[in-house]
């Protein structure tokens, strides 16, 4: 069920990117899409009845059922990268706003 919802999130994010000309709104769409992709990767690695991949007093042995740790490691780094990319995109948007006085791409035109 969450797998299906995350696919829907990817589609919603794509619609958000395509349906607007506002730079900030496009970045919001990219973030929605990124959250959808992260949830999808985690859901692929999930195992029915699996414990969180941490040995502890409650789950002491490595022969128990655990979920996939590789997917979680990938998503963990991807979230931090997403923050950096969003910050870079927002600074570019700020540059556009400083030069043209608007965040709307259709008002900027081709000539600089």
């Amino acid at each position, binding site marked *: 069920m969450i797998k*299906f919802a995350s696919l829907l*999130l990817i589609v*919603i994010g794509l619609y958000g990117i395509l349906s607007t000309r506002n730079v*900030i709104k496009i970045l*919001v769409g990219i973030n*929605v899409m990124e*959250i959808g992709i992260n949830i999808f990767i*985690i859901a692929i690695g999930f195992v029915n009845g699996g414990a969180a991949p941490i040995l502890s007093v409650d789950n002491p042995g490595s022969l128990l059922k655990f979920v996939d740790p590789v997917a979680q490691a990938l998503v963990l780094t991807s979230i931090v990268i997403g923050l950096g990319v*969003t910050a870079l995109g*927002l600074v570019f948007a700020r540059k556009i706003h400083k030069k043209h006085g608007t965040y709307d791409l259709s008002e900027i035109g081709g000539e600089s």
Partner: protein
Amino acid sequence: MNWFNILEAGVSVLLVAVALAAVLSKKLLVSIIFLSALSMMAVSAFALLSAPDVAVTEAVIGSGLVTFIFVASIRNLGKAGEKL
């Protein structure tokens, strides 16, 4: 139908609803706040899928810092900048 399925269905519906609100809202600030709420929904989804590491990271970064850098970008805009 156990507790996992019920929680899963609830989180899925909330994820899609909040994402639609974030993409379709007309004002930028509303859109950004819904993005923060979507991040919180993602945290509950990660916790449900037994990924506590990812949930902690998403809670700190997605709901806190990303919201701040978005709000810092639109904060000083006038009314003209806030329309879609």
